[in-house]
């Protein structure tokens, strides 16, 4: 146990020193006092976020550390753009902690029932249909809507209500297809079919979910005629990728001057491909941690939730990377935790909160076992 905590302490210390150095270097190059302040504030905030929430709701520390590192990368990406943008991104990441708590509390207090699951479906559909109802609404709430729908589908599957689960998933896919978010719709369709396969005992229903999701895509992309030429960002993504340096450049990189929500590419352009690979590997660590939480939980509802969060994170990154190298000619959602879009970032923290909630349940179960074992003696 002591060895384990010593390892954790070393990893955390390395992380904090790394992020302090990462902000000190551009500060010494540009002489910007805001960057000097960030070099102290970012590691300090990370330390606080790793320590403080554990006193309140027992989050899953490994996944929180990975998420905070990805947030740190997103801050690094904006350093050379403008120090004010970095501060704004830091505030957005800190505000995401509220949604992390919300997700954890929701998992802790939620008991699967038909009215509760129905309410979640209603709320998820509301978030997904908001851009259709209000055309002037500039925010995309699709990531949050998808997370809530996955929650509702898991609840219906635990209650063995497969038809409502199927309708909830398909409704979400239709709404996403209607406002041309093909990448997000594909992520939801695959996650939904995979959860159906894992949580439903019936092969018939699993097949039905898969066939209906594929059918929806065929209808939308065929007769309704989705134009792939609309996604003008695809060719620019590949050209940006091919112009990236392999290692961090020695000179101060030139800021493009344009605030982009694609912080993943900005990180690669300014610090080299090595950092992109680090971000990808960190995400894989998060997926493995989430799957481990799903495997160690005792209730199938919590296992479905953790699996849903893992699938949404992993498939989002997969679609994002596949679109960047022109494997998929569709619009893609942002890389997890590396976006300046506030609703997307909050949705990612909400998913992390689901994982934290499942982790807290596992811890509570283990404590209960230990107590029972003590009483049995």
């Amino acid at each position, binding site marked *: 146990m002591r060895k384990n905590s010593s390892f954790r302490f070393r990893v955390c210390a390395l992380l904090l020193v790394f992020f302090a150095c990462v902000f000190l270097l551009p500060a010494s190059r540009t002489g910007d006092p805001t960057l000097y302040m960030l070099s102290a504030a970012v590691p300090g905030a990370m330390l606080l976020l790793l320590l403080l929430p554990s006193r309140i709701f027992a989050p899953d520390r490994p996944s929180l550390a990975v998420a905070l590192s990805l947030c740190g990368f997103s801050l690094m990406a904006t350093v050379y753009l403008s120090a004010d943008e970095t501060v704004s991104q830091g505030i957005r990441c800190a505000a995401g902690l509220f949604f992390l708590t919300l997700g954890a509390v929701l998992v802790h207090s939620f008991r699967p029932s038909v009215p509760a699951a129905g309410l979640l479906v209603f709320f998820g559909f509301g978030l997904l249909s908001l851009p259709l109802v209000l055309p002037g609404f500039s925010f995309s709430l699709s990531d949050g809507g998808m997370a809530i729908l996955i929650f509702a589908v898991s609840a219906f599957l635990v209650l063995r209500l497969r038809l409502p689960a199927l309708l909830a998933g398909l409704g979400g896919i239709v709404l996403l297809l209607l406002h041309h978010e093909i990448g997000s719709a594909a992520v939801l369709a695959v996650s939904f079919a*995979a959860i159906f*396969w*894992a*949580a439903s*005992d019936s092969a018939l229903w699993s097949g039905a979910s898969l066939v209906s999701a594929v059918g929806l895509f065929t209808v939308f992309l065929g007769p309704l005629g989705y134009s792939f030429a609309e996604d003008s960002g695809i060719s620019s993504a*590949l*050209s940006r*990728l*091919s*112009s*990236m340096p*392999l290692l961090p450049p020695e000179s101060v990189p030139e800021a493009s001057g344009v605030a982009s929500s694609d912080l993943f590419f900005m990180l690669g352009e300014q610090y080299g*491909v090595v950092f*992109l*690979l680090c971000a*990808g590997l960190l*995400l*894989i660590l998060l*997926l*493995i941690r989430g*799957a481990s939480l*799903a*495997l160690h939980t*005792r209730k*199938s509802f919590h*296992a479905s939730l953790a*699996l849903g969060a*893992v*699938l949404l994170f*992993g*498939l989002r*990154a*997969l679609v994002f*990377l*596949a679109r*960047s*190298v022109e*494997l998929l000619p569709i619009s893609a959602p942002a890389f997890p935790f590396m976006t300046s879009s506030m609703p997307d970032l909050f949705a990612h923290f909400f998913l992390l909160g689901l994982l934290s909630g499942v982790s807290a349940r596992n811890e509570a179960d283990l404590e209960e076992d230990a107590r029972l074992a003590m009483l049995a003696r």
Partner: protein
Amino acid sequence: MKTMRYRIRVLTLVLVCALLAVMLWTAKSIWVKAPEETPVPSAESLSPSLPDPWAEPTPAPSASSSSEETPSSWETASPPAGETRTPEALFDTFGL
């Protein structure tokens, strides 16, 4: 629950493998630059480096240089004064 755990393992393994494969593909596409990105040399930039076939023959730098490095007579020799080089003359030169 046992079947579910097995399926969760399978799904995670597939997802992680797919993600690694796409990351490798991305790294490959960064490593190998896109063909349209490589600059194509213009005709003006190429022309000064091309040897003039009708230029005066330059003497060989040394006797020890190999015969492959010295330009052959049909490449460098200018036609004699008052004579145009016809295709028939070229055929005669090569014994065709």
